[in-house]
């Protein structure tokens, strides 16, 4: 049960928690949080793989930085959509 496998397992579990949340919850805000959890889970898997070599693998770290900004912009769009859908429904 090496450190890498431990963090890989934590990342995979986080991804599953996010996926489970996305499929079972109905409220838009919680589903957006679930998507962020799935993203963090995959990024944790990638960084666990990067941490196999001591100065961690720069390619994977760069990929995750790119992935993080993609996740933030998608979350921002999703939140505005959820807000407008909510306002549309209530007004």
């Amino acid at each position: 049960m090496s450190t890498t496998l431990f963090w890989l397992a934590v990342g995979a579990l986080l991804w599953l928690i996010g996926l489970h949340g996305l499929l079972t919850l109905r409220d838009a805000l919680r589903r957006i949080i679930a998507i962020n959890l799935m993203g963090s889970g995959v990024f944790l898997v990638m960084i666990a793989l990067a941490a196999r070599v001591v100065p961690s693998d720069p390619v994977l770290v760069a990929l995750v930085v790119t992935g993080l900004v993609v996740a933030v912009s998608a979350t921002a769009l999703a939140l505005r959509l959820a807000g407008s859908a909510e306002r549309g429904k209530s007004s």
Partner: protein
Amino acid sequence: MNLALLSLTLPLVGALLLILLRPAGGRWVIMINLASTLAAAGALHQVMQTGTQWLELGGWQAPLAIRFQLSPLAALLLLFTAGLHLLVALYAARSRHAIGGEDFWPLSCLLQAALAALWLSGDLFNLYVTLELLSLAAVALVALAGAKAYRPALNYLLLSLAGSLAYLFGVALLYGRYGVLDIALLSELAEADVTTRLALLLMSLGLMLKAALWPLHLWLPPAHAGAPAAVSALLSALVVKGPLYILWLLWSRIAPVELAQSAGGLFAVAGIFALLCGGWSALRAPYLKTLVAYSTVAQLGYALLALGLLLRWQEPSLSAALWLFVLAHGLAKVSMFLAAGELQYTLGSKRVRALKGASQTMPLALFAFAVAGGSLIGLPPSGGFLAKWLLLQPLFQQPQHWPWAIGVLLGTLASAAYVFRVVALGFDRARPTPASFHPDRLAQWLAMLPALLVWCLALISKPLLLWIGGVSQ
């Protein structure tokens, strides 16, 4: 390769300038699309001579950096994307009701640039970034239709993000296992062990969710029906084909043979179910654009069936059928959605029942719908028929595979049913629904143009079959 890059950067730079200077979008976008179509045609002509060209971005060797791969198929898809964008831009410039807002122009250019980047890229993580670019552009376009489209757009965005993250998980596993992200290098290294099987499963689930292939297609009809007409045409004809291209790349290049054969059967069965379920839902859909959206799900079943049989029998000629389906469906679906949008806008109602007597009030639009439907069904002289003919060729040679032919037959029956449901209503002239204003003839002609193109494919069928057969090697 430079012409392909030109066809990629023209819409990207054009979109940025459109956002910055905010001119009247229509004319500029038509010029950009025309130039990028010519560039793509030049690239295709060049690549047919020299064969697949490679470009290492940044001048670094393969495993470290991203590599662009311009195969004849990628060049054909570039031309197909630019051409369809040109056709939709021509129609959208004419009838402004179909675009939902001035933002349509820069967004459609960004969509074209995202698709071009996807066709050209040869790197798994780069494909993830292009997939995100594609889904964000598609969601922004769907949201153009106003408040009623926000909920389906949000659902589309969330499921599409979940699909991308499943795909990214698979990419992380493959990188962890083989240490390389380039597709060509992976195809040499890949072997059938438990990690590769899990990675390919995750990536396929993510891509099937994004391409709305059968079990994971439920988000597509509300999103495509809610979007403006020109947007749903682009979405159905192009956006769902991007993930399908990556799925084909994965299973025909990276996956080892025995994995591909076992997965081929599943894909083929899923294709048959897509045909039946899509056809059945389209038959019962009360709204016109929902009917056309379900027909997209059904027609993707043909492509999935072709992919499944291609993998199961390792029969290269079937990939020609797959890509001919993609071409024919793209052209026919653009014409069908534009005609449906025109009918819905002029007759003032979203319901299929409102098309009563449409052959009298709007003959051109209904004719365009019927011609496009003919190609979807696969009537002989159309592009759809060529693709189905290519699909059925191996079945004729080995008669012991007859059950698959039954599946294709049922699919054709279902698609014929929902097309003739609309056409029959059109000719029921008892109490025709009056047009709310004088129908715009030029817009209907522009909506019919792609359908006529898909029927012209038959005129050049001999060179087309040889050419696409060569392309997909």
